């Protein structure tokens, strides 16, 4: 199934996340990932939602989201016209014998080691999902103990911005 990224500006109120999640669940839409945080305007938060589905599904998702009074603005991000990133923390099994090799791989990916112990190494990597997946692949042979991901966040290229406006024609 194709994945589509929606960037949604919402009111920064309690319960908004629950409403959006509820909408997806009752309409049977699949959320691949959801990340939310406050924007440059403290009254507005931005949700980046990656949806699994065909064109028709994504159109319905967008329209239903727009119906929510808390949703101010929504834009489907074009793959080629936007930058996507996610942050992942990976804990691998590591001991004296293979630690160096892991450190080399981490260096090649320009990732960071944020924790070390006798038996583990914790790596922080950020990038587009392909890069993160590639690093995971390389680390699998050592034994991945735990992975924690943020969702995907995205921003448009160039000087395009998604902003709350009072323009009724938008």
């Amino acid at each position: 199934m194709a994945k589509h990224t929606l960037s949604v500006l919402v009111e920064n109120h309690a319960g908004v996340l629950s409403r959006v999640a509820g909408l997806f669940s009752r309409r049977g839409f699949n959320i691949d990932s959801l990340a939310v945080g406050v924007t440059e305007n403290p009254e507005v938060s931005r949700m980046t939602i990656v949806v699994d589905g065909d064109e028709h599904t994504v159109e319905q998702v967008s329209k239903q989201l727009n119906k929510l009074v808390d949703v101010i603005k929504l834009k489907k991000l074009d793959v080629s016209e936007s930058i996507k990133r996610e942050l992942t923390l990976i804990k691998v099994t590591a001991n004296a014998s293979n630690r160096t090799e892991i450190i080399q791989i981490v260096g090649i990916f320009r990732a960071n080691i944020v924790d070390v112990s006798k038996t583990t190494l914790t790596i922080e990597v950020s990038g587009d999902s392909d890069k993160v997946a590639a690093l995971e692949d390389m680390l699998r042979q050592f034994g991945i103990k735990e992975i924690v991901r943020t969702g995907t966040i995205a921003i448009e290229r160039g000087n395009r911005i998604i902003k709350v406006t009072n323009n009724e024609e938008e």
Partner: protein
Amino acid sequence: MRMTGAEAIVKALEMEKTDVIFGYPGAAISPFYDALLGSSITHILTRHEQGAAHGANGYARVTGRVGVCVATSGPGATNLITGIANAYMDSIPIIAITGQVPCAMIGTDAFQEADITGATAPFSKHNYLVKDAEDLPKTIKEAFHIAATGRPGPVVIDVPVDVQNSTLDFKYPKDVDIKGYKPTCKGHPMQIKKAVAALEAAQRPVICAGGGVIAANASEELLELAQRRNIPVATTLMGIGSIPSNHPLNCGMIGTHGKRTANYALNHADLVLILGARVGDRAIGSASVLAKRAKIIHIDVDPAEIGKNINTAIPLVGDVKLILADMLKCVSSDDSDQWAATIAEEKQKWQKKASADANELKDDKEESQYVNPKYLLPLLSEVLPAEAIIATEVGQNQIWAANNCQIHKPKTFITSGGLGTMGYGLPAAIGAKIGRPEVPVAVISGDGSFQMSVQELGTMKHYAIGVKIVLFNNSRLGMVRELQLSKHEGRYSQVCLDKNPDFVALAAAYGFKGERISSNSQVKDALKRLTADDEPYLLECIVDPMEPTL
């Protein structure tokens, strides 16, 4: 002006020109009820919160205003949920105000605490939990705006009891500005041009009118368009009343339980103009088949409905009244009525058959053993004035009413369409009578549905509300029985209600007049007695348990 939160709610309702509210008190809403004593707003005390929600719904449907219902926290609020969901599915503007435990106790499983804002999120247009009394005036103003504009719907306002008791400086805002809510009213001029062109090019156009035409008060524009180009008009269940039942261009209700003529028209059309309808699955079952055969123009105020269930060639978002008015400015007239004549022939054919069937019953040498609803309902329509309001329950009684009553005006046929809520009819009829006391209001009911809201007879007695109840008693859950016959090879499971009480005696216990009839020959006289005055009356009709819906 300084006042308590409770007084502010009452004052805000007065600012919104609310004259009636339906409700049931409790601990968490008692400050509001105290403040209500100082107001001129009429409060109708129902016998179940569900009755309050359905009452507000019926009131809203017949007046075009926003209905208001009030309940306490916990079970009071949860009892409103069916009514709120019902209003959501049928796009009816109501406000539900519920009490809540004090702010500090929210989330502690306090006495009569229920997360009503969480619970109603799926079936409300929007909801609020007001934690600061200062927010009350703005919240109520916004709530009324959201409920009544765009695609109407229910809004829930949850007010903790300590917020009702705290004080604020009351200032009622002049306007609303909600960043995320700006419904489109005017249609896109390009799309309107396209729609007009398509309509003029079509050989066999059909209009499908839904509840949106009635909500937008667009009956005049609908009629003008249909008449100008001789376009047959079919309606959904919610669209009944948008065009008079006896109008020559009216083909009747579409769908699984609709009229053959209406479905024929839709199946042979090359263009279908869908007005204010959401292409429900009971109305248009095979949307993909229809869209392949006919060009679809879909006009609706809710952009999410367009393209949701049917592939639309020409989508048009906006208020159906404004869009039709714009279309009428440039649509040419068409005198050719070949297609309309074909539909009229179909209609005549089926009407002849229907009256032949009815006559068969009348000409029986013996007295018929039961009352036939399809015989009674047209006679009821004859004896009621054109502006009379008919409410229905849900099930066979609902479809019999939809297909056999003559509805002359919009906002005079009230039925639970989308949710199909049994027990809706009686409290909705009560709400309707309160909203339009000067017209006769009848509710078409069944023995199953009637017993779901029977306690509202108490509300009728309390306020002397003259609703006329026509109860089709077949001692069955008729619609489900029919389903079990066709889908489960007649293995009937839990559809037999043959230990019903004496409904006429029950009505008499409330002090109401009534009678029971069991033959078609008794119908005409009974209807005279039913409609003789403006007092409550229960007409129980014994109906054949095997009487088919269609």
